[in-house]
């Protein structure tokens, strides 16, 4: 395990710890962790087209979130992993010399940033929901109320359901 892996593992543990009781957050955190493990193990085994496998794992997360998400904040996880899929496609295309290649350092840094953003986003929103901060609390003071008002749309039900649940 490298330093990056260890720091991500610590980040995952923290995110899991702060969102205890929020099973939806745990589900997405563990899915992201599984995707990271599969793509990293494949990459380090030296097999070809690792970016393809990474993209496939991220696409699987995207589809799972799209079909199972309930709240609006979860749909941002979908957007985040869409970006990750896109980065993998760009890197893979460069590897195949279909277009100018993206440097491996840039690729790794972008993916790390996405992983950390996912941990922060899911952990943060999971924690906010887990402590019940999204429920009504009339005694809350001015700045807290303003913050709650700003964040509250994230905890409403998503705007459009998955196409399988949509009417004709």
């Amino acid at each position: 395990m490298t330093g990056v892996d260890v720091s991500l593992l610590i980040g995952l543990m923290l995110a899991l710890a702060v969102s205890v009781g929020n099973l939806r957050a745990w589900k997405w955190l563990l899915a992201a962790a599984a995707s990271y493990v599969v793509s990293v193990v494949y990459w380090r085994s030296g097999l070809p087209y690792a970016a393809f496998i990474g993209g496939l794992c991220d696409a699987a997360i995207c589809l799972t979130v799209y079909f199972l998400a309930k709240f609006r904040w979860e749909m941002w996880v979908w957007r985040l992993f869409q970006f990750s899929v896109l980065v993998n496609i760009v890197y893979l295309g460069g590897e195949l010399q279909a277009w100018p290649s993206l440097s491996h350092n840039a690729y790794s840094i972008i993916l790390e940033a996405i992983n950390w953003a996912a941990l922060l986003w899911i952990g943060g929103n999971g924690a906010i929901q887990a402590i019940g901060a999204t429920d009504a609390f009339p005694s809350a003071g001015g700045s807290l109320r303003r913050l709650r008002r700003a964040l509250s749309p994230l905890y409403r039900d998503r705007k459009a359901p998955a196409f399988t649940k949509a009417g004709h």
Partner: protein
Amino acid sequence: MDELTTLAVKALGSFGGAVLALVFQPPLNTRDFIIRSVFAFLCGVLFGDPVRQQYLNWPETWQMWVASSAIVSLASWWVWGAAVRLIGAYKGPK
């Protein structure tokens, strides 16, 4: 590479492109999903290789067949959606 394998490679690329399209641009309902999937898959299989040769100028390897079929499939998924929306927008009053 024999003809059947070539077709399988193109079909694989088209399928991949349709899955990618689903990731980036989900359809409105199940009917739209079926129509778009079939359209994107057929476009990828039929036009993937001509597009690779004529416009992309990519070398003739199986990876490029997969990639070009996937790109055509992805683009046709988007084009179908855009066309349906445009036609819908210009529909006269009921």
